[in-house]
Every structure is written in structure tokens, then in C-alpha cells.
């Protein structure tokens, strides 16, 4: 047995279990076992404290120099300064300490699972193989502390398998959560992308419409509107100039008429003058005719007729003077009025075209600015849509994550199966030795202690210790803010 163990020691670096089996002699059996247990439980209590392990290893170096073990591989990590007090307190090294020290040597980075690894190593590598050899001799009595450890290993294996089951169901839970939530998120993003696309289209329409004006039910391009206004203005200005020209022409014409009327009035005066002379001539002719007597009688009649004619012409000339005077008055009035009209300055109205053109330019410029803003907004909306689709694509990491989680679950199942096989084999072989021994719950409880999510801790406890669940869960729920049953609730995240 010793030789075998030494061989193992060579393959597995330093092997304390050999030492353990060596040092276990009949005399101090029971006391050592007790020591072992108390030491072990005390270590369980403060899981995070790794210091005592190298210490123990150092002690062992001191106390068992004559052992046939190969200690040349002793870890330099041991700290002599811290060992002294412990050395003094226990020269009598408990087996458990040595077992654990094996772990200390093997495992450079000590973590929470130190105890678990220790036991596992002891069981798997030494005791178990040893027992295979012992099989043909079932009557053999094993050291009680070894059996005790075996029992602890079995209980550990049991709890581990339960814990693994929980871990697997937790993984499934995570898978479900991921699938549901990522699906929902993807859906929301898809809706967002559709909205963004709609927005882009609306803005595009708006930008198109900004160039047009609705008039009499028709959509007219703004530049056409401006051109139309400009054309109308040009026509109007042409008419203003034309009207002004006509006004001046009329004034000129009436000037001419006024002059003509004056001439006519002059002519009438001349007629009146001639008529006056004619009257005088007729009067003289009558006087001469009277003087001539009977011979001038006929001549007197002619003179009388001429006098009458002159009188008629005079009357007509008077009438003409009145008529022409009225015409002249009319022309003068018209002249005055047309002058007033022609005098109205329309040049300001012509220059209004400039103002209107400036205003139109402002409108077009502003419109251009708006259109550009709308176009860039449209571009931004398109970019957003593309980004959102990118996010949706990225969200499909869920498939890969799911595959990995399935791999993990598969691995855990294999581990579970192997542990079950090991445990069954062990229980069968050590059936009699293990009779009446209870399972150790301390380790699992200490592990549970590190779970931050109260709700999950409850599920662990419920699976491993169904009988204690009620008490534990009520205690836990009072300590944590967890909602114990709602798995899908997003509030879980806040508990970390």
C-alpha cells in the first residue's frame, strides 16, 4: 500500500494522503478523527481564509521529516512567519490537515472550492483506487477517519449533483429569458425601424411639396409662380408707360385744340369786323339812293337787303362766338383734367417690381433652406433606419449564446452521470463501512451563502434540502428584497 502511494505521489506531485494513511496508527485514532472534524468545520466557516493551508503544510514538514515521502516538491509559497503559532498549538497533526495540505500544494490559486477539491482528490486518486485493490478482502477494516471522509465525499457528490441539476435548470431559465426578451426587443426595434422609415417617407413628401404651391386645385412649381408674377408685373408696367405716353399725347392734342379754338375765335372777330363794315356800306348806299330820288329807288331796295344780310351774318357770328367759346371751355377743362391724370407719378409703382422681386427671392431662398433641412432630415431618418436594422442583426447573438448554453448543459449532464456512477460504485464497495453515517450539509450551505440572488438561493436550498426549505426561504425572503416566485421579472437584475 505504501509503495503504491509513493508511485501516485510521483505522478501527482506531492501526495499527502499517503502520509495520512501512514501516520494513522491505532493509538490515537479517535482523537485524530475528532480533531480532523473540528478543524475542518472551522475552516468551512471562514471559507475565504486561505492562510491556514500553507501553514499546515509547513507544520507537516517539521513534524514528519522521517516519512518516506518525497517532499522535495514542497511549495515555496509556505510562509514561515505565520506558521510558528500553529506549530506550537498542534504538534499532533490531524489527518485532515494533511489531506488539506495536499490541496494547498497542488492548487496554487486557492479559491472558494478548496475543500471540495481536497476531498475530491483524496477520494478519486488515492482511496478509490486503493479500494479497488482491496476488493477481494471485504473483511478489511478501514481507518474510521478515512471512512468518515469517504462519507463526506459521497454526501458532497450528492449535493453537487443536486446543485448541478439546479445549475442546469437555471441555465434553461436564462435561455428562456434570453429568447423571450431578445425576441421582444427585436420586435420593438423592428417597429421602430418601420416608424423611422415612414418618417423618412413623410419628410421626403414634404420636401417635394415645399417646391410647389396649390392653386385652383393644381400643384404649381414655385419658380413658375414667380415667373407668372414677374410677367404680370412687366405687362402692367408696360401699360403704365403706354398710359403715360397717351396722357402726354392727349395733353399735346388738347394744347393744339386750344390753339385752334383761339384761332377760330380770332376768325369770328374778323367776320364781325367785316360785317360791321358791310352794314356801314349798306347804310351809305341807302343814303345815296335817297338822294338820287326816283332814279335811286331800286338801289335803295338792294342796299336794304345788304343791310339785312349784314345783320344776319352778325347774329350768326355772335352765335358762333358763343358756341366756340363753349367748346374752348370744354377743351380747357379736359386739358386741365388730363394734365392732372398725366401728372400722377407712377414711377414708384414701377419700382415696386424690384421690391416684389426681392421678396420673391427671399421666399425662394427660405424655401430652399427648408427643403435642404427636410432633405437632411430625410437622410438622418434613413440612417436611423439602417442603424436599427443593424442592431436587429446584432441581437441575433442569442442563437450563438443558446448553443453555448446547450453545450454547457450537455457537459454538466456528462459530469452528473460520471459522479453518479462514482458514487454508486463507492457506496456499493463501502456499503458496510458507511452504514449509519449521515450526509454533510455544511459545505453546500456555505456555498449557498455566496449566492447573491436570494430567489436563486431559495431554489438551490429547495432542491438540495427539501425538508428545510420552508424555514430557510422565510428567513431569506426577509433578508433580501427578492420576489421569490417571479422568474421572468426584470427586477431581478437590480438585486445584484
Amino acid at each position, binding site marked *: 500500500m505504501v509503495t503504491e502511494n509513493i508511485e501516485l505521489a510521483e505522478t501527482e506531485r506531492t501526495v499527502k494522503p499517503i502520509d495520512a494513511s501512514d501516520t494513522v496508527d491505532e493509538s490515537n485514532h479517535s482523537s485524530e478523527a475528532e480533531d480532523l472534524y473540528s478543524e475542518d468545520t472551522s475552516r468551512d466557516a471562514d471559507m475565504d481564509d486561505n492562510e491556514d493551508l500553507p501553514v499546515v503544510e509547513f507544520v507537516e514538514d517539521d513534524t514528519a521529516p522521517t516519512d518516506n515521502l518525497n517532499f522535495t516538491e514542497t511549495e515555496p509559497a509556505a510562509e514561515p512567519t505565520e506558521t510558528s503559532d500553529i506549530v506550537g498549538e498542534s504538534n499532533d497533526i490531524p489527518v485532515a490537515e494533511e489531506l488539506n495540505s495536499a490541496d494547498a500544494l497542488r492548487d496554487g490559486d486557492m479559491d472558494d472550492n478548496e475543500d471540495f477539491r481536497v476531498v475530491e482528490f483524496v477520494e478519486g486518486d488515492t482511496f478509490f483506487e486503493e479500494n479497488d485493490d482491496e476488493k477481494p478482502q471485504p473483511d478489511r477494516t478501514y481507518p474510521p477517519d478515512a471512512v468518515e471522509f469517504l462519507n463526506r465525499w459521497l454526501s458532497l457528490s450528492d449535493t453537487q449533483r443536486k446543485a448541478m441539476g439546479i445549475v442546469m435548470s437555471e441555465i434553461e431559465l436564462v435561455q428562456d429569458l434570453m429568447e423571450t426578451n431578445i425576441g421582444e426587443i427585436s420586435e420593438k426595434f423592428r417597429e421602430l425601424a418601420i416608424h423611422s422609415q415612414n418618417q423618412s417617407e413623410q419628410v421626403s413628401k414634404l420636401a417635394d411639396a415645399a417646391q410647389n404651391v396649390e392653386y385652383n386645385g393644381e400643384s404649381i412649381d414655385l419658380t413658375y409662380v414667380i415667373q407668372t408674377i414677374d410677367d404680370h408685373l412687366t405687362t402692367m408696367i408696360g401699360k403704365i408707360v*403706354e398710359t403715360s*405716353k397717351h396722357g402726354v399725347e392727349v395733353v399735346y392734342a388738347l394744347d393744339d385744340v386750344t390753339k385752334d379754338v383761339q384761332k377760330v375765335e380770332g376768325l369770328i372777330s374778323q367776320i364781325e369786323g367785316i360785317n360791321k363794315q358791310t352794314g356801314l356800306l349798306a347804310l351809305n348806299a341807302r343814303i345815296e339812293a335817297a338822294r338820287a330820288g326816283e332814279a335811286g329807288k331800286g338801289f335803295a331796295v338792294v342796299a336794304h337787303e345788304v343791310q339785312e344780310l349784314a345783320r344776319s351774318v352778325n347774329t350768326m357770328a355772335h352765335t358762333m362766338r358763343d358756341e366756340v367759346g363753349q367748346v374752348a371751355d370744354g377743351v380747357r377743362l379736359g386739358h386741365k383734367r388730363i394734365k392732372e391724370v398725366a401728372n400722377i407719378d407712377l*414711377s414708384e409703382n*414701377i419700382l415696386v417690381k424690384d421690391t416684389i422681386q426681392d421678396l420673391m427671392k427671399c421666399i425662394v431662398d427660405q424655401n430652399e433652406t427648408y427643403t435642404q433641412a427636410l432633405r437632411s432630415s430625410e437622410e438622418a431618418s434613413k440612417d436611423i433606419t439602417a442603424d436599427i436594422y443593424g442592431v436587429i442583426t446584432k441581437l441575433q447573438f442569442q442563437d450563438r449564446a443558446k448553443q453555448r448554453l446547450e453545450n454547457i448543459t450537455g457537459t454538466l449532464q456528462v459530469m452528473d452521470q460520471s459522479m453518479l456512477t462514482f458514487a454508486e460504485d463507492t457506496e456499493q464497495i463501502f456499503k458496510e463501512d458507511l452504514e449509519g453515517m449521515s450526509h454533510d450539509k455544511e459545505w453546500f450551505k456555505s456555498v449557498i451563502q455566496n449566492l447573491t440572488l436570494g430567489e436563486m438561493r431559495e431554489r438551490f436550498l429547495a432542491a438540495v434540502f427539501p425538508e428545510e426549505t420552508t424555514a430557510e426561504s422565510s428567513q431569506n425572503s426577509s433578508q433580501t428584497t427578492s420576489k421569490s416566485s417571479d422568474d421572468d421579472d426584470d427586477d431581478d437584475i437590480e438585486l445584484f
Partner: protein
Amino acid sequence: MQHSIDTGNGVITISLAEKLSFEDHDKFRELLTAFESKEYKNCSINLQQLSAIDSAGLGMLMIAFETAEKNGLSFQLLKPQGQVKRLLEISQFDKVMPINY
């Protein structure tokens, strides 16, 4: 309105100054009588010194052009400035008669 007349080589150039408005219609008509003379073939109205014009003034320039045309003279406006130039542009006089800027 102030004015001056240059003649020579069958060319008569009437230069206007200050403002051409309706008030000047009598005076302007007298100037146009020169166009009826057979000794000229070419007439110009120089607007360089003219600072302002009203709508009646534009009408009178139009009458001047028509009078020249009626008498078989070639006609042109010379060097309009400022407001006068702008009004001639807006009223598109250049489409009716030659304007030398």
C-alpha cells in the same frame, strides 16, 4: 428740367439734366420740333445728367422715339443712370428702342 442741344454731321443730341416730369411737357415738345427738320438723320437723347424721371417722363421719351421714327430718324437713348436706368430696365425700354449704357 435743363437741357442742351448739340448738332453736327446730321446728328442731333439733346442732353437732359435734373428731373424730367410732366411739368416739362411743353418744353419737351418744343425740343421735338427739331426732329421734324430734314437736316438730321440721327437723333440721341443723352440721359447722363438726368437724375430722376416720372411716368409721364417715360411717356415723353416714348413720344420722342415715335416722333423720330415718324420723321425717319434713327433714335437712341444714351447713358441712363440710377433711378432713370432702373426704370428703363424694369419698363423694358430696351425692347422698344436702342439704349447705349
